[in-house]
């Protein structure tokens, strides 16, 4: 994707930093959820941040404006945008734009990327300078951790509260280190909000960890026991990875809901995340409906890139699932090995006690000790097998599901556009008929309807272009992250294997003289 340079409409040299360059640079600037003012206005519209979180349609409006990138369209758009505007869809009214003809996606295959101006700063009440400063680095200086699970309450109403600590030097946060208490449903609530805001416009929103009714019930009901401790640790680690992935995403990091989640001491309880609630059931119904729709949408894919990528992700998904299953088997067998080694160690100790030859008795006891230590090693290795290797694969399987979801959203978007075109055609036919029918008021209405649908078609096309563009970028970012992530975790895992071998050598080398001492 070539990065084309266009003269910044606001004539502000700083804005060159905010270009959407190629995937090699993850810059805040490239977030497409920025609201853009018209090129001709001297200052970007200043919009209060809160509006974005309360009005779910916010980013939608933003995406419309981004189409300013296309020189073919909207070059002369003069409207100033305000999030408060109720007629967001009407922004692209025909009198302020050149005639729009439905364009097939092929002409938009190579989208040009740069936003004309970056008002991200204005949206979120940060100074342009600060953002510039942050953008000059390749990584965002923010790290989050999830720790200290604490049981709150009793019985079936009990829940676990986790401490979420953020360390950052980003100016958009109120301080450089802070922590809050959050429960699992808060995380799900956050994901729900982010997903509803960003997925339908093509962003890959990292999925939240899965619910587990069984796991949580055990924790609620039981006292301290190893299997529920394991469950809690698994969940804590998963929540941490989830947050880390979310804050790594340049667009999501700017979302006020995310900031609120990280920063505010009180968070409204997200009740619609409960599995058995009305909202939960609605979600399930919607998911089912989506699945059916997916089967019936037959898209004319004119962009080979999307087809290739979809196939690629499909393959990757299958392979990862296989690998994941194998690693889960490994974890299971390693745990068995640990248990059996421990059992053998105890047995060898007993044997040593019965042995009447002194030196051999000693050696058997030593052997028992060595095997006990080895059992410990196996346990630690099983832990690494699981938390490093197995969970990495699980995370990516879920992430790929999110990626596939985003491709589906694009299909839905295309369908919407096609439907609009079909409706427009019908309206035109109806108008033509009325022309010869001689009913003037109906004719007028028909003409109005045509105008309405013409703009819907335009919007549909724009949205489709936009989502395609976003997805390309997101996939690029995802691929880059995936390579880095995978390499880093695998290296860590291999290092755990190295550690195990080193310890094994140590233990056996210590035992060797004992064995030789048997006389």
């Amino acid at each position: 994707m070539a990065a084309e340079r266009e003269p910044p409409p606001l004539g502000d040299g700083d804005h060159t930093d905010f270009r959407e360059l190629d995937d090699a640079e993850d810059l805040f600037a490239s977030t497409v959820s920025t609201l853009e003012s018209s090129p001709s206005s001297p200052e970007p519209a200043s919009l209060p941040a809160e509006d974005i979180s309360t009005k779910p349609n916010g980013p939608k409006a933003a995406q419309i404006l981004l189409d300013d990138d296309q020189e073919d369209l909207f070059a002369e758009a003069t409207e100033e945008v305000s999030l408060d505007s109720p007629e967001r869809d009407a922004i692209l009214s025909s009198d302020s734009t050149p005639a729009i003809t439905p364009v097939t996606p092929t002409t938009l295959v190579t989208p040009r990327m740069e936003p004309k101006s970056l008002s991200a700063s204005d949206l979120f009440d940060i100074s342009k300078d600060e953002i510039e400063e942050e953008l000059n680095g390749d990584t965002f200086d923010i790290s989050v951790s999830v720790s200290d699970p604490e049981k709150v309450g009793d019985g079936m109403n009990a829940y676990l509260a986790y401490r979420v600590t953020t360390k950052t030097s980003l100016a958009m946060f109120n301080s450089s280190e802070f922590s809050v208490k959050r429960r699992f449903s808060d995380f799900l609530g956050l994901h729900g909000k982010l997903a509803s805001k960003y997925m339908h416009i093509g962003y890959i929103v990292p999925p939240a960890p899965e619910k587990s009714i069984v796991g949580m019930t055990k924790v609620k009901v039981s006292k301290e026991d190893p299997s529920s401790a394991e469950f809690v640790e698994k969940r804590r680690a998963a929540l941490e990875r989830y947050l880390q992935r979310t804050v790594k995403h340049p667009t999501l990091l700017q979302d006020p809901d995310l900031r609120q989640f990280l920063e505010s001491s009180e968070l409204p309880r997200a009740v619609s995340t409960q599995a058995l609630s009305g909202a939960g059931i609605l979600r399930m119904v919607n998911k089912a409906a989506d699945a059916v729709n997916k089967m019936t949408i037959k898209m004319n894919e004119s962009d080979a890139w999307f087809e290739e990528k979809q196939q690629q992700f499909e393959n990757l998904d299958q392979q990862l699932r296989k690998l994941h299953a194998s690693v889960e088997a490994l974890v299971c067998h390693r745990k068995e090995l640990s248990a059996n080694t421990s059992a053998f160690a105890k047995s060898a100790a007993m044997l040593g006690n019965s042995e009447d030859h002194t030196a051999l008795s000693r050696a058997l006891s030593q052997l028992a000790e060595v095997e006990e230590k080895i059992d410990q090693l196996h346990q630690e290795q099983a832990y690494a097998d699981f938390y490093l290797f197995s969970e990495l694969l699980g995370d990516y399987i879920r992430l790929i599901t999110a990626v596939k979801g985003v491709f589906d959203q694009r299909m839905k978007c295309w369908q919407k556009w096609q439907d609009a075109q079909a409706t427009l055609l019908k309206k035109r036919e109806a108008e033509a008929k009325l022309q010869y029918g001689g009913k003037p008021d109906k004719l007028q209405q028909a003409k109005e309807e045509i105008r309405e649908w013409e703009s819907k078609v335009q919007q549909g096309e724009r949205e489709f272009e936009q989502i395609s563009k976003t997805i390309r970028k997101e996939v690029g970012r995802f691929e880059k992250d995936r390579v880095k992530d995978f390499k880093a975790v695998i290296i860590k895992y291999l290092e755990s294997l190295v550690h195990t071998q080193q310890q094994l050598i140590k233990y056996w080398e210590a035992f060797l003289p004992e064995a030789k001492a048997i006389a």
Partner: protein
Amino acid sequence: MASTPEENDDNKLRSVSVDLNHDPSLMIDIPDALSEREKVKFTVHTKTTLAAFQKPEFSVTRQHEDFIWLHDTLVESEDYAGLIIPPAPPKPDFESPRDKMQKLGEGESSMTKEEFAKMKQELEAEYLAVFKKTVAMHEVFLQRLASHPILNKNRNFQIFLEYDQDLSVRRKNTKEMFGGFFKSMVKTADEVLLSGVKDVDEFFEQEKTFLIDYLNRIKDSTAKADKMTRSNKNVAEDYIHISACFSSLSADETSALSKYLLKLSELFEKLRKIDGRVASDEDLKLSELLRYYMRDLQAGKDLLYRRARALVDFENSNKALDKARLKSKDVKQAEIQQQVSCQKFEKISESAKQELTSFKGRRVAAFRKNFIEMTELEIKHAKNKLSLLQSCIEIMKK
């Protein structure tokens, strides 16, 4: 087929007991064996300078049941009551690899061609290992007999080695004579030994307590060692699947990850080969060691039992003599009987003491040898795995 690791296996197996087969007057080995469905046919090869045999070198074919027959005749012979009869070799058991082979066949469709080939290879190696183990056990049994100054003169032993026809007819005859009678007696040996009066001889009292206790514990250790070895094998097998998955992922991968995934696939394949060696070394040096001595200790306990029975006979004959003297009836008979029982008991006691003492020496030496070998192998394998892992990490960090 013979390759160095397999030859090493043979040597390791023979070393379960102390080194045998050095005396040129009678050297026995099993160079060959054929597996036909349920039956294994062993080729028993003998080289001898003894006049008792018709030829200086000869081979015969024997089945497992023939070995059992030989063992049982020795056990049931009064002449050898004071000796530790080398334990009979266990029945060849191919059930485990056979079951696994069947399961593998059922799961063939869910694996890649490569994966399936590797699993099959593993299973074939397992089958071969079981095979080699059973050959070694049968061989060691014969070698122990050959090296025992009294047992190697046994007529049935010579027939076993020399008789160039099928032994099954002979087997049937002897079975009819003893027919498991002794076996059912042995079951209550513990009770006989434990319920008896405390032995006058300190040596035997100690041996009794030691053997009963130790035997129970070594049975447990053997079983636990087996489980541990099997778990090791399972982990090694998982690596096969993981390696195959990495290989498939690498093929589809277009990013820079592709070459790393291929490296990882190779790494896991190499690791699993080493882990397979670790599992089989532990099996031979630890599990098989424990198992063999468990059986040997059982034979030692049988000896104690026979001595205890002889003691009971002796005590009974004393009581009978006293009774006879009281009644003044059949005194001479009773006196002879008492003499015989006494001699028998003393002969067994003396022989048993010797046998048990040398047995302990053998056992300790064998444990020492195997522990040292196992430890050295563990260190070697761990070092190999370590260097493989470290070089892979180097490559991945680039």
